[in-house]
């Protein structure tokens, strides 16, 4: 009798589980069968009418049916959830080629990028980065660098003057003097900064631009060390295959002086439009610090020697990033800046 009832309940439950299309209808089955007022629960409640000796047997039968139904329901639930998830995933397909949502960072100025590159190279070689004043005294910009009053170089550089004694520095070289005057030796420093010359604005000139000055002073330093250091710098900046060439030149504050060319990084030195067919591109001026310059800064030229170099930051930026007009660097057009 009970066996029949249980079979009926089991059949009914199985049928309904199989027919369930979602977790709600599955839940209804659970309530109808296993709930407080469910059909199987009712059987258990009817146990009091069963003879005492029959009870364990009946109880076991009920539990068997119960666990079978529970396990079938669990299987059905997992199956239904999987189906539902797959349906959702199918539904949620997107066009991955739609545009990205703009997380827009700003861009660093090409001058700054070039500068940081140089700072990285030279701090790696043990150079300290120092700064000096842009509005400067004549002494530090000229006289202490072996450019006395009436020296033609003073005219060549077309200086902006504030008055007879104070001017806008035409070169970062004055920082060398400030550094030497501190009297802390040896010195390894680079000094980036803004400089000014009375040049009218055009594609290759700006009255306001940047240089990076370098200075090394120690007891044992030679011209060959200057060559080695700058060759290393050029390789770091322009690539491992970069060759350098030093040509004699003249600067009042170094002797011997040189200009350094690097092999054209576009054509590798074969000659192209970029290097005007030369295969070489002029990059910087350098030389051994003039003994007189050391003397003026109270450094004994018999004991100490040094080398110095000066790089035009814009020149590096223009070359490295192939910018064809210097004016772009100071217009700050977003469409220009965002390319860096």
């Amino acid at each position, binding site marked *: 009798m009970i066996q029949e009832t249980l079979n009926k309940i089991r059949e009914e439950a199985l049928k309904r589980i199989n027919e369930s299309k979602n977790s709600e209808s599955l839940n209804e089955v659970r309530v109808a069968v296993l709930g407080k007022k469910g059909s199987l629960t009712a059987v258990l409640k009817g146990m009091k009418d069963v003879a005492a000796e029959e009870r364990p047997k009946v109880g076991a039968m009920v539990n068997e049916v119960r666990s079978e139904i529970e396990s079938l329901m669990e299987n059905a639930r997992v199956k239904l959830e999987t189906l539902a998830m797959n349906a959702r995933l199918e539904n949620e397909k997107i066009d991955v080629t739609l545009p990205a949502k703009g997380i827009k960072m700003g*861009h660093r100025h090409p001058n700054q990028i070039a500068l940081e590159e140089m700072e990285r190279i030279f701090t790696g070689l043990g150079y300290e980065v120092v700064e000096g004043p842009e509005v400067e005294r004549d002494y530090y910009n000229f006289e202490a660098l072996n450019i006395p009053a009436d020296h033609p170089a003073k005219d060549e550089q077309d200086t902006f003057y*504030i008055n007879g004694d104070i001017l806008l520095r035409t070169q970062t070289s004055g920082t060398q003097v400030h550094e030497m005057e501190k009297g802390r030796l040896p010195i390894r420093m680079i000094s980036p900064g803004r400089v000014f010359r009375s040049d009218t604005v055009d594609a290759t000139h700006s*009255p306001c631009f940047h240089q990076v000055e370098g200075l090394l002073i120690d007891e044992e330093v030679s011209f060959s060390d200057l*060559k080695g250091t700058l060759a290393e710098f050029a390789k770091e900046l322009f690539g491992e295959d970069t060759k350098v*060439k030093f040509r004699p030149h003249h600067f009042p504050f170094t002797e011997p002086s040189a200009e350094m060319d690097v092999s054209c990084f576009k054509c590798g030195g074969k000659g192209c439009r970029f290097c005007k067919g030369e295969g070489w591109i002029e990059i910087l001026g350098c030389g051994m610090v003039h003994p007189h310059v050391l003397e003026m800064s109270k450094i004994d030229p018999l004991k100490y020697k040094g080398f110095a170099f000066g790089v035009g930051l814009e020149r590096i930026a223009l070359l490295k990033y192939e910018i064809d007009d210097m004016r772009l660097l*100071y217009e700050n057009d977003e469409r220009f800046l965002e390319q860096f």
Partner: protein
Amino acid sequence: MNTSLNWIKALVPGLECSDREYMDRMTMTGTKVEGFSRLDKNLSKIVVGEILSIDRHPDANKLVVCQVNVGDKTVQIVTGADNMKAGDKVPVVLDGGKVAGGHDGGPLPEDGIEIKAGALRGVQSDGMMCSIEELGSSREVFPDAPESGLYILPSSAVPGEDAVELLGLHDTVFEYEITSNRVDCYSVLGIAREAAASFGHKFSQPVIRETGAEASESAADCIEIEIQDPDLCSRYVGRVVRNIKIEESPDWMKKRLRSSGIRPINNLVDITNYVMLEYGQPMHAYDLSAIAGNKIIVRRAKNGDFFTTLDGEERALDDNVLMICDGEKEVGIAGVMGGENSKIRDDVTDVLFEAATFNGPNIRKSAKRIGLRTDASGIFEKGLDPNNALLAMNRACELVEDLHCGTVLKGAVDVHGDLPEPRRIALEPDRINEFLGTDISKEEMLTYFDRIEVEFDEKSGDLICPTFRQDLVGFADIAEEVARFYGYDKIPTTLPRSGATGGKLSFKMLVEGIARDVAEFTGFSQAMTYSFESPKVFDKLLLPEDARERMAIQISNPLGEDFSIMRTTPLNGMLTSLGINYNRRNKNVKLYELGHIYLPEALPLTELPDERMQFTLGFYGEGDFFTMKGVIEEFLGRAGIKVRPQYDPESGRPYLHPGRQADILIEGQKVGYLGELHPLVCKNYEIGARTYIGVLDMPAIVDRSTFDRKFEGIARFPAVTRDISMVVPSQIMVGEIEAILKQRGGKLLESYDLFDVYEGDQIQKGFKSVAYNLTFRNKEKTLSDEEVNSTMKKILNGLNGLGIELRS
């Protein structure tokens, strides 16, 4: 400086090299060659032709048919030129040859123009007769060429011979960049000396023949010379030539002048120009009959004087300008230009030659002030060697005799003070090798010096440097001579041996790096703008007359008003850049700049100004005041400034929106400001959108920055949160509420977050609703309700004091 290679080769026997080799070698020894041009580039099969006959073209009015003897044959050539006659000799390019350019003298085509035989209007033409422009030259250096038409060669030219050779065009002209220390290289002799040494030859100066020795009259009989300002004129040499015959110069001289870009004029003028090229010593010739009182006086002009130079212009003078005067009047501006009153005319018979040494800087300044920079002043301003003046003078007189241009009188009138002596500098081979990082023998070094006429005194070990090498002063100069002739490229490549000091950036630079990072992460791109600007910017920024910003440093020689003062505010650069972007229709532009402003202590400037780095942010488009505020606070936090900044709305900045601006304060100290740009300023900068600005004074920030971080633990005890919603009188700013929260909340109040501000229908007029979420926590233990309640009570009491009620 342009010089013909043929001329150099004539002075350096045995010099054999290609143009390219010459350029490279000279550059690598320090005489930088900027470039060279071959004068016979694209000239081929061009010979002397003799025109035998000229007949009309049967079918063209403007053409003629010529029979031309080209040596081995006669060819027929059709031409449109009309300046020739039968018997004239002309350059002829034969069939298959090339010329350099067209007859109009326009830019020369890279590969020249090929000439082929063919028919012109039905008549056979087997070549072309050439104008000077077709030969790649110009009337500038061939003044005898016609304005248009064929170049007529001298009647002595032989048909069939190389016409290019005849014109001196088988030559290469090199352009040098001479550095300011090498005055001696502004001369052909100087370049020749360098060329000889560069190619391993020994240079010898040409010996100048004595002139005028036989003359009965001497220069001193004709002229007296007095230098009244010896500081401006260290030497004045005068010689006299009588019986002048003005003629054309010989071909060899004309060719050399032309190759240097100088137009031949007549023998007398050409000699002075030739000597200037050869010796680097400008010369001048005066008509002796125009020199009153047979006297030359060298003295300063007087303030307010005027003088007419030989180009006919009247020039204003002052007492810094050195003049050449005769017994009565000025006859020339020393070193710059002669006077109209003593100009050489074609009927001149007697001439006074001048070769002088003037103070270089003074000549440079005079030329600048008068506004007349001449070839001569350009050379004088470099500061010449007085010893060279006499050499040049004697060379000129030698040429006068060679060219049969006149009778040179005996001797010179030579006025000077102490003349420079050769300088002795010790040759220290070991020290040089240590300095250069080389291993060059003393003997090797001596060969270099021997080639450039620097002698060696074996006994003292000194080098004896000639006075034309004014740049050789001390040890380093000697080392440089060795380095450049040894070869910079042969010097080894090493790295400094000395121990490394620690390379680093300063703290200030690191804080600036944080500013850049935060700006860029929040969407701002880096701008760079000029340090100088126009004083008009103060009006554009609506600054009142007495604004501190108007106290700006003025540049005494600016490029123009727009670049005439050093900026005292970073706004103009930023706003100009935003304006450019707006004008170019760039949307949502965000820029930042790290740059100096220049604040003078007092004007006129006696002390260097305070250069203060400003971190300036500006944008238009998406975002508002609080976007800017967020960027600033993020930066301050990253820079290690923990205290919350305060905002003072009473910042009184006329260029900002009066209701949307604030000074930024940290612990009561002003460190910057932010705000929305005033609409009038937007208009002045042509920005048609709301624009926001933030400026931080970096020195003030750097002072308060730190990279020290201490871990404070992660809270172990739970927090209690309470929301309060208030009715607040409209004029009260949330900053005031927050001040109370902070003060009354004490240690237990961990944080407070504003989550609503509302003004409108639901709220009584004159009030707004403000709601905060407060978080309380005790780091030591779990908070009790009583503790929170009592703190809340304190806060509410404080708020009541401001007339704030809890919203019911």
